[in-house]
């Protein structure tokens, strides 16, 4: 009840001309920034931060909060329409979003599904944040290196079913992803790895450029090869009404969205995890549930789960940030920097000392969620026109997007080089029937897994029992073992049943 009152107070703070203006502006900018590949929420917030120095802190954080939040909507657009992820979390979106938009010919529905799922996930996340904010932050703290390591291992088991029909190829790419991710400075010992004396390699492979190349640029090359073949251009008039989801679609996406929303919120709270991991975990968690189509072939459930999870994570990330002054992600870190710049002391005392600020921010997330849904719904008819652009025009446009996107991540030609090389390699891999999903998944998760696992082993002096040292760690470890043994157990059960049937027949 107390929280509800505080939240109402937050709405009172929010409903001034400037603050609502800031929310709308933040939401619009967030959508734009999110839709542009390469410029994720991190860059968006960092770019806008200096602009806000002259605002009062509450207005400033409201704007940045809305921007961060709307970003998660925008990132999905290019993933669904062009197969180029706008940001990290969208890597998962394209697994189902792109097939749904192209192979199934339902681009409008795919975009709308992603919007509605984002809205549901965000709403779940913000509600949890409102009622359990500080408690949530404490739960996040319970996740030490050991707990994080097992959770990440559990997530990585989902690589197993992303591999497609050839497990050997999948394993090779998983290993390659882990090796690529280990390039650069070893953060624990400070020693360089695979840097070959090159300063840039010391910084490792930049994630965004790598992803844009492997998924997006490789596709440009494929398009160039296939341009002679006349593509079945979508000639139907794409309207707002034509892109409505059916009631059946909605029932398919609702439960996955709610579930992934809860999961995503908790992942967002975990130290160092963030929206990308949340997306993967939410998607992986959808697998055991009933899906009308297999995930990865354009299933609404899969698209809804990952989109919902990443928006929920964006909300969840505010819990440790506000309650403890701990950034849960890179973007959270920049926001934290902003707090200090405005003269606020983020940390355990923020909710007590600056309730107006903290609750104003939470209230603005509610508003931003609604505004972003409305705006992004409105732009769908314009966005899906991209699909009717002829291939000969699409190739140069997407090429430019790939170059600009990789360059703008950290303003370096090195990133562009990485993008081009990984594009060529990605193209060759696809030609040889390798699915690149395991490569991307292991590349994203390996650095987190490595640092947490090594920290856990330092704490335990190399003993494995640390993975059973707490309730959380034990639960995840047991789950992990069950997951790994599941195929074997199923095989034994089937054999046993066959034997029974046989013996019955004989008797």
């Amino acid at each position: 009840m107390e929280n509800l009152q505080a939240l109402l107070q937050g709405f009172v703070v929010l409903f001034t001309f400037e603050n609502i203006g800031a929310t709308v502006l933040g939401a619009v900018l967030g959508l734009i920034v999110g839709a542009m590949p390469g410029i994720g929420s991190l860059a968006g917030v960092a770019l806008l931060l200096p602009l806000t120095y002259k605002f009062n802190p509450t207005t400033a954080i409201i704007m940045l909060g809305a921007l961060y939040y709307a970003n998660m909507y925008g990132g999905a657009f290019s993933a669904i329409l062009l197969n180029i992820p706008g940001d990290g979390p969208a890597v998962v979106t394209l697994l189902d979003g792109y097939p749904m938009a192209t192979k199934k010919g339902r681009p409008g529905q795919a975009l709308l599904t992603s919007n509605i799922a984002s809205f549901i996930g965000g709403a779940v996340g913000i509600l949890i944040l409102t009622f359990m904010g500080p408690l949530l932050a404490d739960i996040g703290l319970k996740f030490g290196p050991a707990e994080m390591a097992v959770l990440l291992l559990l997530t990585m088991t989902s690589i197993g079913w992303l591999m497609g029909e050839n497990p050997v190829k999948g394993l090779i790419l998983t290993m390659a992803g882990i090796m690529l991710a280990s390039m650069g400075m070893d953060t624990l010992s400070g020693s360089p790895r695979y840097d070959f004396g090159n300063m840039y390699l010391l910084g490792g492979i930049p994630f965004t450029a790598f992803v844009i190349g492997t998924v997006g640029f490789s596709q440009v090359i494929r398009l160039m090869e296939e341009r002679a073949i006349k593509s079945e251009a979508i000639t139907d008039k794409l309207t707002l009404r034509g892109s409505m989801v059916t009631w059946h679609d909605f029932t398919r996406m609702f439960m996955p969205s709610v579930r992934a929303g809860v999961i995503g919120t908790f992942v967002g709270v975990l130290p160092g995890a963030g929206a990308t991991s949340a997306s993967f975990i939410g998607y992986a968690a959808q697998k055991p549930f009933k899906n009308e189509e297999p995930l990865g072939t354009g299933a609404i459930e899969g698209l809804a789960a990952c989109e919902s999870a990443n928006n929920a994570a964006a909300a969840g990330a505010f819990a440790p940030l506000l309650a403890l002054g701990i950034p849960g992600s890179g973007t959270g870190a920049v926001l934290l920097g902003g707090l200090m710049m405005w003269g606020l002391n983020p940390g355990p005392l923020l909710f007590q000392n600056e309730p107006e600020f903290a609750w104003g921010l939470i209230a603005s997330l509610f508003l931003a969620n609604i505004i972003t849904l409305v705006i992004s719904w409105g732009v769908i008819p314009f966005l899906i026109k991209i699909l009717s652009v002829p291939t000969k025009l699409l190739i140069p446009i997407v090429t430019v997007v790939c170059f600009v996107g990789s360059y703008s991540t950290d303003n370096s030609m090195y990133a562009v080089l990485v993008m081009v090389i990984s594009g060529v390699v990605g193209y060759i891999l696809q030609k040889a029937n390798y699915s690149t999903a395991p490569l991307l998944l292991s590349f994203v998760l390996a650095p987190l897994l490595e640092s947490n696992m090594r920290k856990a082993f330092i704490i335990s002096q190399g003993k494995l029992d640390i993975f059973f040292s707490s309730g959380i760690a034990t639960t995840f470890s047991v789950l992990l073992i069950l997951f790994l043994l599941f195929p074997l157990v199923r095989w034994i059960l089937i054999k046993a049943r066959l034997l029974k049937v046989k013996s019955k027949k004989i008797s």
Partner: protein
Amino acid sequence: MKKHVLIATFVLLIALAAPLFAQAGAEVSSTGFVPSKEIEWIVTSSPGGGSDIFTRKISDIMVRENLVSGQTFLVNNKTDGGGEVGRLTVSRVAAGKLADHTLLTFNSGDHGPMLKNTDNRIENFTPLAVMAVDKQLLYIGEYAKYKTFAEVIDAVKAGKNVVIAGSKGDDILTYEHLVAELGFTQNQISFITNDATSAAITSVLGGHVDIVMSKPAAADQYVAAGKLTPILALSNSRFTGNLASAPTLSEVGPYKNVENPIWRGVVGPKAMSAEAAKYWSDALKAVSDSTAWATEYIDKYKLVSEFRDYVAAKAYMEQFQVEYLKSIGKTK
């Protein structure tokens, strides 16, 4: 029809946002170098850590005391490659407007690893100032197994293993000094390197690690809220204020005090013009002389103020480089 709605929405948006930008405006001075665009200030640690607080405090004071003619700072936390990428980027900025508007936070904890792991040297930068000297303490969290440092020493002697979490760079060096002075091995007391002190504090708050090493600034909030308690001052004398309860090592047992002073400074790209270097050195001097700096930074976070201008800072950093390279057995 739809287009009109769109245009109307857009106009409304701009109208709503306009008051937000109303306060911008700059003053212009006519002599020598004056900042004429926003200043990019690179920090090679994550937000919330000591270097970050240092940077934001200086830029904040510069804006408040009107030392940058109305321009703003864009603080950029570039932590890739243990900070080496950020340092390399700054060292390579080409001469011109950008070089005169780029700053880099640079302390002994940055300088050491740079010399150890790369070929980048202080000659590739323009030293601007040394501002202060910082020291560390060890803290425990609420769930700590050991309540004092004497208990920690007894536990290690009894065969237990203790883990200290800290940041990179100078924290590792201080840890190595501490373990050597105590006569233990690095397996008995091990160290977990984090990207910034804030991450190390997280692991102690969750009870996953016994002890955290931090400079007073990054731990300040948590000490005030009762979440962290200082148990050992890594200094030749005790700290003051709410850190006064922590003894030095010689008070705990028959050991010498461990102190590894960290200097905190600011540098620019090598290509920075001489006028700009003079300008920034003077501006940093003005910050160092301000009462805001004394009360909001030096006293609050218990540092020792020690200003060196761009000429003195250059000599100081070069001296550090020569000694450090010698200590790790590198010739240049």
